[in-house]
């Protein structure tokens, strides 16, 4: 470089630096926001061509594919021609648009969208992915979610749900003011009110479970007439990552007690003597699983503790209550909890033979050497393990009602 002056060298260096900066990768894709379709929900069903697709096929549309999956994409629609101008005048139109396509590769299907709609879809705002349980029974989560995990648009905090019916139905709403995906996304926030709602399973958590080949539960959604309800949970088996069965609401409660992560909820029991309603509201919930190893025999001991308040009782009819009554309410509630635990355990242990409550994790912590030997057929061993459980509920307050 001897023949160049220091000024030339500096110019060369600064140009080099700025060029390198410009070569960096980044989000270069330019597209004005109003020219994009924001997808907020994705539903995956078993392959079943819509009537529209059948008509297209008749006209000669189509390509080489297997009709395995029908996806329904929910798009927030603010841009339709009828909606330009005053926002208030379009209360007759739905604020969203559901588009369905049938085929096999999810990625290809999503790109097919471009052949039908003017605005390309972006996945940044995808909030919920709902999977039909029949589809999940046949295909593993690895395949179903692969595209969603790879796509760098889709956020890993997008939530995954199961639907026992058609997901298309779950992505519909009756009124014109509701965006169904937002409704489902918002309902997850109610976990502090009831532990019938599972803690949200985001895409990233599902991925972790998938990679660990662990079993897990996904919130189940029921949909009827444009209304939805969170009911029970779908159980995914770790080894296959496929749906094995569903827990109903009571069974889910039982499993939730064992997991002990609930933030609030109700235990409704009947008073033993009067058969009247007593309701216990959970303030805190704690569970501890202990594993024991005797020879090859694995057993577990679950200790569940909870503080709560007496929120409703139909027994005393305004009379003062005594300590004995509190005791009896606690007992009644404990009995009720034990009943649900039994139901839940029976389902996951005996029927589905999947460990979704974290027994294996405790065992691996407490007996790491043994765990290495048994972890490959853990589900089988788990189904034979002896599980004892003990429930202690404590009423710490009686609410605001005067003197009682």
């Amino acid at each position, binding site marked *: 470089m001897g023949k160049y002056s220091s000024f030339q060298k500096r110019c060369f260096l600064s140009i080099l630096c700025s060029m390198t*900066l*410009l070569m*960096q990768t*980044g*989000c*270069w*894709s*330019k*597209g*004005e*926001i*109003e020219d*994009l379709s*924001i997808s*907020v929900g994705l539903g995956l069903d078993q392959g079943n061509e819509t009537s529209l697709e059948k008509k297209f096929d008749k006209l000669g549309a189509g390509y080489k594919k297997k009709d395995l999956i029908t996806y329904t994409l929910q798009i*927030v629609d*603010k*841009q339709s021609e009828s*909606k*330009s*101008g005053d*926002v208030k005048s379009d209360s007759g139109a739905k604020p969203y648009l559901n588009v369905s396509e049938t085929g096999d590769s999810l990625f290809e299907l999503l790109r097919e969208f471009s052949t039908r709609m003017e605005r390309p879809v*972006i996945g*940044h*705002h995808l*909030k919920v992915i709902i999977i039909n349980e029949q589809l999940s029974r046949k295909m593993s989560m690895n395949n179903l979610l692969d595209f969603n995990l790879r796509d760098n*648009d889709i*956020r890993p905090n997008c939530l995954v749900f199961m639907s026992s019916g058609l997901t298309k139905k779950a992505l519909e709403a009756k009124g014109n003011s509701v965006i169904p995906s*937002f409704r489902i996304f918002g309902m997850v926030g109610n976990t502090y009110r009831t532990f019938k709602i599972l803690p949200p399973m985001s895409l990233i958590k599902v991925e972790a479970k998938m990679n660990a080949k662990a079993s897990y539960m996904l919130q189940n959604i029921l949909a009827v007439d444009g209304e939805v309800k969170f009911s029970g949970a779908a159980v995914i088996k770790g080894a296959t990552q496929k749906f094995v069965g569903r827990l109903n609401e009571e069974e889910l409660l039982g499993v939730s007690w064992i997991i002990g992560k609930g933030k609030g909820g109700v235990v409704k029991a009947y008073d033993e003597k009067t058969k009247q309603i007593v309701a216990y509201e959970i303030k805190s919930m704690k569970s501890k699983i202990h594993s024991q190893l005797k020879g090859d025999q694995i057993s577990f001991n679950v200790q569940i503790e909870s503080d709560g308040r007496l929120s409703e009782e139909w027994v005393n009819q305004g009379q003062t209550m005594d300590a004995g009554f509190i005791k009896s309410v606690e007992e009644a509630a404990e009995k009720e909890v034990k009943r649900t635990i039994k139901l839940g355990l029976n389902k996951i242990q005996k029927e589905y033979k999947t460990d979704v409550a974290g027994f294996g994790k405790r065992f691996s912590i407490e007996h790491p050497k043994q765990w290495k030997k048994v972890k490959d057929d853990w589900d089988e061993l788990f189904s034979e393990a002896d599980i004892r459980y003990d429930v202690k509920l404590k009423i710490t307050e009686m609410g605001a009602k005067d003197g009682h």
Partner: protein
Amino acid sequence: MFYEQKNNHSDITIREFLIGKQGVKAAIIFTNCLADLVTIDQHILRALMSLREQDVPISESYLINQVLSVSYISLSDDMDVILPKILIGSTALIIDGLSNAILIKTANSHSRSIEEPISEALVRGPRTGFNETLSDNTALLRKHGENASLSLISMQVGARAKKGLIIAYIKDLADPALVEEVQRRVSKISIDNLPESGYVEQLIEDNFLSPFPQVQSTERPDRVIGALMEGRVAILLDGTPFALIVPVTFSMLLQSPEDYYERWLAGTLLRMLRFFAALIALLTPALYISFIAFHPGLIPTKLAISIIGARVGVPFSSLIEALIMEVAIEILREAGLRLPKPIGPAMGIVGGLIIGEAAVQAGIVSPILVIVVSVTAISSFAIPQYSAGITLRMLRFAAMFCSAAFGMYGVVLFFLLLLSHIVKLKSFGIPYASPAVPYSLSDWKDFFVRMPIFMMKKRPEMLQNTDSKRQKK
């Protein structure tokens, strides 16, 4: 000879008269209106003409020492000296038989009274501002307090129209090298005319390509005094109320004297607010463009949806849309400045409200953009220095183009480029970004945060003062 000059200078008056018993011919020559007639009549004419009964020796020394009761008197026989003096208000007395003309300073100063500075209003602080007369301005500096070390170096600038220029500094505070450098740069000015101190600023600044002002101009004597007491140097030019302060650093452009007059918590908060406002004024439209056109995923979902709803039907891309509104608001601001005072506010209403509202109604721009543009405009008004405000307004457009080309990455690149420029820039040898770069911890007491006054015991380190302690104890 003076009668010849009268052809060129019609405003010259020549008054001839006789002195003493001998009746020596004499004449005074002065310029109408520039010379003070009271002084001429009472101290020159009356004094000389009252000698008519006496037999006096007519000599320069006699007249100066015993007759003319005026402070400023000089002698000259050079026509090139006498004529310019007459033309700025002196009176020349020529007497038959004497070789020298007696020059008597009779200039009357029609100066504007001292008013509150218009361009730098304060809630709390002295209500005085400089005016257009150099002597008044230096007097304002002197009046600040008894201070024998306040030095004023007088210089003449302008080849054709000579003007007084004063370099002010505190003798035992300012770095002598700095004073010398200022003197050197000022003396190198060889332009024929300097209408305003902006000329001086542009002729002595370090980097003419930089968008940042490297000299601070101010109308406030208290700001000048504050700068002098930190060891800076001020330059005052005759004929303008704007004094120049050098060296300047970036943080000074976002400071106001009020930061020091208010209590330190309030001062600090206001100062941080101004830094924040500067960022908003610089980057908001650019961020708007990059969010809308490149990163829809970075907007919260509900906001994204409402932005879509608002932008449906807008026929332009976000850059064009933002440019339309930004240019419109710059035109409005410029027009508002130039308008006569009574029409100004009406203009703001017409421009801001009606055009903004109508542009949204007509679907030319989206309501979100109107918010962005107005927030930007208001933020840029929060910059206390007008010239720094202009800088940010200029750079805002550059940021918008960068963002339209490369999105958020472009904004980041632009900001990096700007930072590297600021770091490299110097004002009279002092790095523009100090005390951030080069780092000087003790100067941070008066940077983003204005620490309590009792804690600021030292003058800014970066100025290399000869006396660094501000508080002795």
